[in-house]
């Protein structure tokens, strides 16, 4: 077990949904870093690559970062943000294929135990299967 915990980024088209989801996940997440990145650059509904990139930096942990997102554009922008950040795209940052709220809560609970990024991913993605 690592002393470092996986960080979480919550991406929603709505800033309020992202904030609320992060808040729910924090109830389960102990000292896990959970950063919300909701809405477009102007505060409207949408998703924003720059905002997601900044959230990844804030959530960054040597154990990795897991991203949860709601709809297609949020996922596309999250994948774009990982790529724009540079480095090996597969290393350390993953977009989880899980429902936003349930996935975030499970990911936070599992990350809080000091689980690896792969374990966090497996637990959250089980929600969707």
């Amino acid at each position: 077990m690592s002393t470092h915990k996986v960080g979480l980024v919550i991406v929603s088209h709505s800033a309020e949904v992202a904030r609320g989801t992060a808040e729910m996940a924090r109830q389960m997440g102990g000292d896990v870093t959970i950063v919300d990145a909701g809405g477009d650059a102007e505060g409207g509904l949408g998703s924003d690559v720059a905002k997601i990139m900044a959230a990844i930096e804030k959530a960054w942990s040597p154990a990795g970062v897991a991203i949860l997102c709601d709809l297609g554009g949020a996922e596309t922008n999250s994948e774009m943000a990982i790529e724009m950040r540079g480095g090996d795209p597969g290393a350390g940052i993953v977009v989880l294929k899980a429902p936003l709220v349930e996935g975030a809560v499970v990911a936070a609970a599992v990350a809080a135990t000091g689980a690896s990024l792969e374990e966090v991913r497996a637990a959250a993605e089980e929600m969707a299967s």
Partner: protein
Amino acid sequence: MPQDMKRLARALIEACADTIAANADRLTALDQAIGDGDHGANMKRGFAALREAADELAALPPSEALKKAGMTLVMKVGGASGPLYGSLLMAMGKTPGVDDGVDATRAAAMLAEGIAAVKARGKSDVGAKTMLDVLVPVHAALERTAADGADAKTLAEQLKATADAAAEATKPMRATRGRASFLGDRSIGHLDPGGESSRLLTHAICDVLVGEMAA
């Protein structure tokens, strides 16, 4: 970059930004019918940013200009269109030989690279009622016309006609990717907004190229 290439780059940016701005409300209306209604405003913001950066972009070699323009769209457009159009341009800029001059054959190779990136980024392909349903037929027409050695005017007319027919052909399609896919059968009977923006950009680019050839 040589002066004529600089002028061409500026003209292409201006024409794309103009057509997007002029049609933004219509793109938004199309997107309101089957999506989240942000396509026009998002594209307008992104292409306005390209217009602002036109001097800087025109001074770069084409490979660098396309990369920077793509990144600008990624950062400014938002929605899924930003990463999709951004990936299109960035991948076009990575095509081997882009800085050695672009003829129709190389333009076809660039568009092929761009389309591959859009497919990967959007996890999509033709038939899903997306921009790919316009870009892929336009690429096929470009490849065919380039092989025939057609002059610029003929090439432009064929590409524009292909784009028109392809955009229209998205109407009866049922969306399986993007926000419109949530509507299922209700997406049938509407033009795809992404297909329409790709059609508009194809027209703008063809018109500039023909104008430059004539100049």
